[in-house]
């Protein structure tokens, strides 16, 4: 153990290239943003691994929703079934949670869901880069939801939207206190909304790397590999559930904006 940690410094460069090794773990190296075509500086528009994996996300969505439905069969094949299932799943979610008038925003919510779910699953390909594990990405998604929902709330209801913070069913003396709590919780929404997704993805992938690092010690390798398999299975679940949670919370926020009364 001691010698291995000692030798870690020398092999560090190699380890980093391989994404971890020895007993010096580099579970966070997988999240490094690198320029695609060499160079060190990452400017505003440098094509990076972020660009590459987002492009793959777009291509996967194209394949999943557009190519599979090109035949427009009445009796769907496997691919078309998936596309229809995804469509029906989100459509019903928006309808159930946000109500009929929420269906106007269905394409936006579908965009969010498809991006997150596909990016999450692509991130589970060994050696891939998980775009949704970055707080910069999830924060933009969450802020987009927060700002649009707030704007929709005020445009649709005017000042009545503030009724969301005024709990009219509570006793009068309690209402100002509740209003403060409601306002705070409202502004915390984008924070929890984004960190829930980014944190889950990051943590899962980091844990996978840690287990994989342990696999280099012969004594615990079988256990570590079993652990990697178990965590990978869990991550498959998390990848879907986090996309689902993000989407359904978006629907809930949208419902609040459309029907602010408690």
């Amino acid at each position: 153990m001691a010698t291995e940690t000692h030798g870690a410094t020398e092999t560090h460069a190699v380890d980093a290239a391989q994404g971890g090794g020895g007993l010096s773990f580099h579970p966070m190296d997988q999240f490094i943003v690198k320029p695609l075509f060499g160079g060190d500086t990452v400017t505003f528009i440098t094509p990076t691994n972020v660009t590459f994996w987002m492009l793959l996300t777009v291509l996967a969505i194209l394949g999943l929703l557009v190519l599979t439905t090109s035949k427009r069969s009445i009796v769907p094949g496997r691919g078309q079934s998936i596309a229809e299932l995804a469509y029906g799943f989100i459509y019903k979610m928006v309808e159930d949670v946000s109500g009929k008038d929420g269906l106007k925003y269905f394409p936006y919510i579908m965009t969010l869901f498809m991006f997150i779910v596909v990016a999450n699953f692509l991130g589970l390909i060994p050696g891939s880069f998980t775009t949704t594990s970055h707080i910069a990405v999830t924060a933009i998604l969450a802020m987009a939801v927060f700002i649009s929902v707030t704007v929709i709330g005020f445009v649709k209801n005017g000042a009545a939207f503030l009724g969301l913070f005024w709990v009219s069913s509570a006793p009068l003396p309690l209402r100002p206190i509740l209003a403060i709590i409601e306002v705070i919780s409202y502004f915390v929404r984008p924070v929890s909304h984004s960190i829930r997704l980014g944190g889950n993805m990051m943590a899962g992938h980091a844990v996978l790397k840690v287990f994989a690092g342990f696999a280099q010690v012969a004594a615990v390798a079988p256990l570590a590999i079993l652990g990697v398999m178990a965590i990978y299975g869990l991550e498959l679940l998390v990848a879907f559930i986090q996309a689902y949670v993000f989407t359904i919370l978006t629907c809930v926020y949208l419902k609040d904006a459309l029907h602010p009364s408690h």
Partner: protein
Amino acid sequence: MATEPIYEELAGTCVDSHGGAIGMPQLCAEWMPNQIFWLVITLIVIYLILTRVALPRIAGILADRAGTITNDLAAAEDLKAKAAEAEKAYDKALADARAEAQRIAAETRAEIQADLDEAIAKADAEISEKAAESEKALAEIRAGAMDSVREVAKDTAASIIAAFGGTPDQSAIDKAVADQVKG
């Protein structure tokens, strides 16, 4: 350990001299504009793909299917009604045929019964006629037999008397035979 997270250095470079991550790459402010830029581009592209192609197409497919199913259901309903009608007609035909068959059977039965009654009556008459004839013949035969018995008795008595050497008295024999046979 070789790679302790060093949060103090976050503001500086995010990658150490070996290419390893320093702290959490998620918190590297240097990379964020790039990520945000590509994310926005990606989201716009996905939105355009969905709204221009994917969603209208899938909605169309689902609507087509719903239409087809509705039409098929209506057609099925029609066929079902037709089937019910046909069954009704069939039932009616069956009931008619059964009634007709019953009527014919009853008629035939009545005819046969009439014939039978007639034949029985005729047979009865014949039988009673024959019985009367037989009765008569029997009586004649019985009478004839009595006469014969008397004749044989008289002859036998005369022969027996003659055999004993006497002269048979015809009138006495007749009287004795008549007395004996009567009883």
